[in-house]
């Protein structure tokens, strides 16, 4: 190798190393933004509760106190779920996260997930149309629930003010979950990339996030033989379809 070529190679390696470092530093910012939201809520709710309880707690309706604590609890639970997922990202990437199968009804799991978001959905004026066919099967609850959580959160964020349809259907071999919003949608030119790591659609540029949700969804479903696809156009909403065999190996 000539000296000039070697210099060029080292320069390119240094450039790649610098790009990697830039990316790692960007992750700090993203993590701070992701954690900023639950932290803000907890600070505010604590202030709200402390201020009132120190003042005139006797006059406060018990139900009001319960509501504030329940909202705080929901935020903490969501943060816990987010942490659980972050902790398994390396295993998801390597495909080494164990799959724990159990028999449950997919329709019940979906109904529970929608129920968890009931208040947010009402606030965002997203009327939910549920079409749930009872569908028992053998799946990993953690994996399917994490995918559902991601799809519902996205539908809520990007489809606020419009209805959301959630459909569970299937036959002897296959189960399908469809989550459809009528929000801002995703340009077809971006469909091929949205399931890649750290990819964020342009319409989500100013929302905190790592761009890992759909990549994780695909990785979570893969060991179950499941798939996830999107159909969408800008300003026409988005439909995400999850397909799962009723039992792995089918």
């Amino acid at each position: 190798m000539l000296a000039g070529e070697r210099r060029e190679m080292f320069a390119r390696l240094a450039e790649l190393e610098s790009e990697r470092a830039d990316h790692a530093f960007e992750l700090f910012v993203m993590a701070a933004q992701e954690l900023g939201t639950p932290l803000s809520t907890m600070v505010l709710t604590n202030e709200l509760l402390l201020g009132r309880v120190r003042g005139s707690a006797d006059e406060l309706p018990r139900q009001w106190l319960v509501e504030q604590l329940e909202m705080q609890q929901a935020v903490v639970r969501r943060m816990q779920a987010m942490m659980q997922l972050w902790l398994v990202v390396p295993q998801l990437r390597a495909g080494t996260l164990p799959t724990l199968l159990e028999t449950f009804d997919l329709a019940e799991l979906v109904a529970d997930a929608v129920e968890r978001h009931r208040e947010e959905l009402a606030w965002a004026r997203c009327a939910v149309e549920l079409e749930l066919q009872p569908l028992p099967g053998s799946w990993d609850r953690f994996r399917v629930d994490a995918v559902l959580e991601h799809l519902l959160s996205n539908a809520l964020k990007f489809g606020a003010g419009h209805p959301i349809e959630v459909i569970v259907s299937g036959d002897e071999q296959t189960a399908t979950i469809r989550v459809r919003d009528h929000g801002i949608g995703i340009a077809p030119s971006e469909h091929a990339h949205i399931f890649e790591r750290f990819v964020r659609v342009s319409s989500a540029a100013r929302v905190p996030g790592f761009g890992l949700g759909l990549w994780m969804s695909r990785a979570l479903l893969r060991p179950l033989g499941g798939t996830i696809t999107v159909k969408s156009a800008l300003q026409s909403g988005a439909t995400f379809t999850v397909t799962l065999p009723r039992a792995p190996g089918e």
Partner: protein
Amino acid sequence: MTSLLIVDDELSIAHAAAELLRFAGYEVATEPNGHVALASMRRRRPDLLLLDYMMPVLDGLQTLAAMRVDAALAAIPVILMSAAPERAIPRGERWLRFLSKPFREATLLTAVASALA
């Protein structure tokens, strides 16, 4: 009664801030994004808008831009809120006050009172 509108895509934040402001004697409504908020403000003009910067559909700056060209909304004073430092937010649109998240009750109440003064 002075009416405030809080626009934030996180229900829990909008809810807690609204409750704090209600205890301080304000009438408070909340909306989940700029797009819905614009329609709501055209129906009922608030005396002050507390607007989150990072939001889906229509973010804080896009909402400000839409308000600027709407004669009915252009004069509404705005407090912009964000976890990002103010200096990291592109200039171009104008806001009266900036609230850095997470904020505390006293900071929120002072910002609102001074924006309304």
